[in-house]
């Protein structure tokens, strides 16, 4: 049995929890190379996601991610809004009506998400953005899926790679987003969006591995 709407809901609920818990950390990361709002943005955005899930429980994983996309685009307020919004929207499209998501479909959805961020933000690996977490993550997920691993393991590989990718932004000079205003002075700081990406993918892995969380899980 692959992943379903319960997983998607758990993922989003664990994401909201992670954003709330790491709110201050993400704000502090955004301070030296941004405008000190990434934690606030993500927390607000995922609170809106929770509200949407409660208001109208989705029938499929795709529907859950689409609802999340709309909430993030409307409520985040910063660059992360259209970026994550587009990512979740493309992932939702990739998943379609699927109710039993196998590892290949999962990896394809993650690739679609990453491609959406690239389409929206035009960043490449090395530009010191969330793409530096997403691209190694989707590569790791694809490899794990191709190697025949379970969905939970695929997501764990993605989360591990995203964490490493986030760390890899430390020495980089930003070429996209607000941090690019700082030029060389952006080096020596970790990109906040890459860190939030790692947190979100870790939440996805936890949702696939662990027991149910939160309230409205498993409507499908």
């Amino acid at each position: 049995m692959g992943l379903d709407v319960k997983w998607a809901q758990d993922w989003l609920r664990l994401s909201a929890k992670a954003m709330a818990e790491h709110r201050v950390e993400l704000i502090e990361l955004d301070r030296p190379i941004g405008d000190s709002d990434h934690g606030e943005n993500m927390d607000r955005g995922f609170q809106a996601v929770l509200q949407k899930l409660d208001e109208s429980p989705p029938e499929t994983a795709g529907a859950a991610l689409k609802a999340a996309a709309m909430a993030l685009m409307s409520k985040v307020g910063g660059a992360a809004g259209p970026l994550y919004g587009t990512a979740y929207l493309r992932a939702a499209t990739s998943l379609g009506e699927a109710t039993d998501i196998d590892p290949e479909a999962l990896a394809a959805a993650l690739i679609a998400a990453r491609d959406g961020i690239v389409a929206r933000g035009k960043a490449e690996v090395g530009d010191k953005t969330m793409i530096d977490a997403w691209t190694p993550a989707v590569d790791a997920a694809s490899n794990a899926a191709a190697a025949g691993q379970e969905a939970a393991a695929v997501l764990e590989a993605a989360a591990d790679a995203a964490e490493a990718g986030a760390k890899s932004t430390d020495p980089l000079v930003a070429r996209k987003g607000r941090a690019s205003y700082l030029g060389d002075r952006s080096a020596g700081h970790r990109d906040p969006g890459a860190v939030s990406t790692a947190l979100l993918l870790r939440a996805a892995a936890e949702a696939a591995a662990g027991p149910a969380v939160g309230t409205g899980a498993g409507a499908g």
Partner: protein
Amino acid sequence: MTVGIVVVSHSSKIAEGAVELAAQMAPDVDLVAAGGTDDDRIGTSLEKVLAAVEQSLVDSGGDGVVVLTDLGSAVMTAESAMEFASEPDAILLADAPLVEGLVAAAVAAQGGAGVEDVRSAAEAVGSKA
């Protein structure tokens, strides 16, 4: 009818002030401000931008809409809004400085320019007249 113009800024004050400034030289042009987050913090809101674009599509009665933006994330929000808009092909995003480009675009629209020319007017803004 003239081309409509939407002003997407991280600040509702900037968007409103820019509209007031440009309106002086373009009283017949529909200028719509979409600044700030939905709770008026500094940032952008897809909902605000989408509502502004849809209003502008109606106001401009088929003549098209040009969107001006300030920083990069406003560009991304505007591009997202265009994907959800009812008539994406009638909307052009200008790569121009917000305030200076808006005045140039508004004057072009007031003079009856088409949507492509309005965008070009914004993008052609160079040193200050």
